[in-house]
Each structure stands twice: as C-alpha cells, then as structure tokens.
C-alpha cells in the first residue's frame, strides 16, 4: 500500500516507522523545514517539505495513487481540508484524520472522513477507566461491539505470573495475550513464552474477565 501522512508529529513519525517496517510505501509531508531536515536522515526520500493541504504539494507526493491519506497535523481545520481535498481531487479511497477538539468530530463524519482519531477522547477514556480499574490494567481501546477491550497490563514486581509460562496460567477463553514489549522488543507470545518483571503486555480481554487479569498480574 501507499500511505501519505501529513504532519510529522510524534504520531505521524511513529506511524510512518511502523508502516515502513511492514513493507509499505510511505511519504510524510510537513512544512517545518527544520523538522524535515532532521527527519530526512532517517526517512530519506520518504519525507517531503511542503504544505500538505495544498493540492500541488499533494500531487507531487503522488496523492492520486495513495491508498490512504492520514491527516495528522495539530490543526483540525487543516486536517479537514486535507481529507476533503484528497477525497475530491485525488479520489483517495481512505482518509484518516486526527481531531483535537472532540466537538469537531461531527463535521469530519459529515464530510465522509473514514476514521477520526481523537486523542482528547482517548485520554479522557483512559483516565475515567483507569480510576475504575485501579493501577494494573490500562484499557487502550474498546473494540467494536463494546464488550471486548484491548488492554495493557504491566508485570509489576512480585507478580504471580513472573517466570510462568502462558500455557500454565489457565487463562479463560476470553483472554488473549497479543504481544509483550520487553526491553524495546516486541514479542509474539506462544504457549511456552515466560513472563518477566516489567513486561508490558497487550491483551484482548472480555469485559467480564478484566478482574481476572487484574488478579493474575497483581504485584506484591
């Protein structure tokens, strides 16, 4: 796939890294010259200087053959224009936008932006949910349908699961361990994988099993 990312924010840069390592073609557009110069050391031709809400710039970036355009600048109005331009002028099949002000989500939906990412709402959600869940399980994202969540659980000191294999935990069907971040590496877990202290575990959990995962991971 070819993905154009407008806005070399932290989110934009990290998304680009992930996509590039997944074998996708990526162009990041940003109008901050210093930023672009700095990033070009790592990204080479995949980063471009210019205003990503400008039709000529998008054309040079190859918007007419992009599968996805992600508008990730910090300004909602700019992101709106990027999505509309690419949809209408370049027939981009999929547009994704960052929306900073939750009140703006309606307008993005009304113009047909395929997905909006609202960091404020996600943060609010995290804060609200975290109060309920205590310190151990951090909900990352409710999945469609609502009764299943993507969560992050850290393995604290003295946790019961340290040095135990996944297969020996007797996890119920409603809990799937998706990845484990350990010392900057992402592990794809198998039944034989052993948990270590300070592991950051991402799991898909049915809501009714949140307590269960909480108890399992609890520290001393």
């Amino acid at each position, binding site marked *: 796939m070819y993905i154009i990312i407008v806005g070399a924010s932290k989110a934009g840069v990290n998304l680009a890294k992930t996509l590039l390592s997944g074998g996708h073609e990526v162009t990041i557009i940003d109008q901050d010259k210093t930023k672009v110069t700095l990033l070009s050391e790592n990204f080479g031709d995949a980063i471009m200087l210019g205003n990503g809400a400008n039709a000529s710039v998008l054309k040079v970036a190859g918007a007419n053959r992009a599968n996805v355009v992600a508008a990730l600048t910090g300004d909602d109005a700019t992101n709106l224009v990027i999505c*509309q331009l690419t949809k209408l002028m370049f027939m981009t099949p999929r547009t994704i936008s960052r929306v900073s002000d939750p009140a703006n989500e309606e307008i993005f939906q009304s113009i047909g932006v395929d997905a909006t990412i609202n960091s404020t709402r996600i943060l609010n959600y995290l804060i609200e949910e975290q109060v309920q869940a205590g310190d151990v399980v951090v909900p990352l994202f409710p999945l469609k349908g609502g009764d299943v969540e993507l969560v992050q659980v850290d393995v604290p000191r003295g946790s019961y699961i340290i040095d135990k294999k996944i297969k020996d935990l007797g996890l119920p069907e409603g809990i799937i361990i998706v990845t484990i971040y350990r010392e900057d590496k992402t592990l794809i877990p198998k039944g034989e994988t052993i948990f270590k202290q300070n592991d950051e575990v991402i799991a898909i959990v049915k809501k009714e099993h949140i307590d269960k995962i909480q108890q399992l991971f609890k520290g001393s």
Partner: protein
Amino acid sequence: MRVVIIGSGRLGSRLVSVFSKRGDSVLVLEQNESKFMYIEDKQGVEFLVGDSTDEKIIRQALKKPADLVLVITGNDYTNIMIAQKIKLVDKTIKVIMRLFDINLVTVYTELGIEVVCPTSLTIDALLKMPGLS
C-alpha cells in the same frame, strides 16, 4: 437584510461599515475583541466575541435569522471549517467564504459553497490594466 460577518480583519471591519451604512442589520463575530477597534461606524452593529469554529457560537450568531453569512477570517482552512459547520446548522442559509488558494476554490464551489477568491480577482484586475491587456 441581516448580515453576519465572521472575521473582523481589514476586510471584515470595512464590510461592517459598508453594510450598516446601507441600512442592513449587521452582526460581527470575531475571536479577538481588540479587532473591533478598527470598525469606524459602530452604531447599530451587534458584536459577538468567540471562537467561530465552535458550533455553539455559530448558533448564537444565527439566533436571529440571517440572510447572508460572510466567512472571511484570514485563514482559508478555518473559513472552510466554519462555512461547512454553518451549513450543518442551517442548510438553507446563504454562505459566502473567502479563499486565497485558487486550487481550493474549485473544490468548494463544486461542494456548493459560494467562494470569493482575492487572488483570482487580483489577477483579473491586473490583466485589465493598461499595458497588460
């Protein structure tokens, strides 16, 4: 006629005077209160201070039914956002926005929003000048 003017910069503050002198009822919406200073003839003009991309403020500005809304802040992208939000609030209202970027004009005219483009107006005017035509 009732006119709502969004953005009270050089153009906006002039237009306020032009319309109110003509006898129209005018409301001007501007985020930065100090900009009202530049309006010469303030008599009978309604002033509203607030973020014009905020739907609540838009609704407040349109409380009395307007015949025309001019969206003329200095930023194209902001104007585009505001104009479309107004259309969400009231589909039938006549909205004209200012866009400097000629490329954007075609896109938004096709979407049914009326646009005035100072860049193309300047080009037209220049081409009509002696020695250029």
